[in-house]
């Protein structure tokens, strides 16, 4: 079990790094929002991994909050802050 969890943690770390690369390079705000959604999913997966390793449930409320807050963040950016993207086409 511990070996599997470590392999999973390594994969999640690489994934988070790649997503952060996309978030840094952009090129538009909406690309960063998509990357942020994926990063939130990765963070939720990482917290769940830690809960599964140590068999505790202290971090489970954080998962609920993260899945809701990520939604509010991406929707508000897509609705209100994406209008400076005009003209860029990737």
């Amino acid at each position, binding site marked *: 079990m511990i070996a599997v969890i470590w*392999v999973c943690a390594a994969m999640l770390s690489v994934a988070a790094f790649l997503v952060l690369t996309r978030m840094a390079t952009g090129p538009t705000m909406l690309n960063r929002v998509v990357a942020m959604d994926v990063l939130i999913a990765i963070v939720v*997966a990482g917290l769940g991994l830690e809960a599964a390793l140590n068999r505790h449930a202290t971090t489970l409320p954080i*998962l609920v909050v993260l*899945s809701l807050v990520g*939604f509010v963040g991406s929707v508000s950016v897509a609705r209100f802050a994406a209008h400076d993207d005009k003209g860029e*086409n990737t």
Partner: protein
Amino acid sequence: MNIADVVSAACLLAGCTLSLIAAIGLVRFPDLFSRMHAGTKPQVLGLLLVLVGVGLRLRDWTDIGMLLAVAMFQLLTAPVAAHMIGRAAYQGGAVRQDTLLVDELTSALEADDPGQSGRT
């Protein structure tokens, strides 16, 4: 280590693999819509697999209820967020026409109000 632990480990491994694959796709795909396609994999299936893995490992009904709440919120909110992002991208003109196979929205908008160029 019983059978539930083995299934849990398999689910966790599959979910994390999906996250990694999606991150690679997010870096390598050329435009916003294909990146959204890659990004939905860990958001729905990957996250559900990880939650199933955690639930099989914890085996407590209170925790499983909370995990179900996470899964339900994610399934409810991910399509809405993706729809808002896709709509904002289309209206902002961030759509690459050469990578689209089918574009029903432009013709629908033009049929809806003729004389406009579509992106209203």
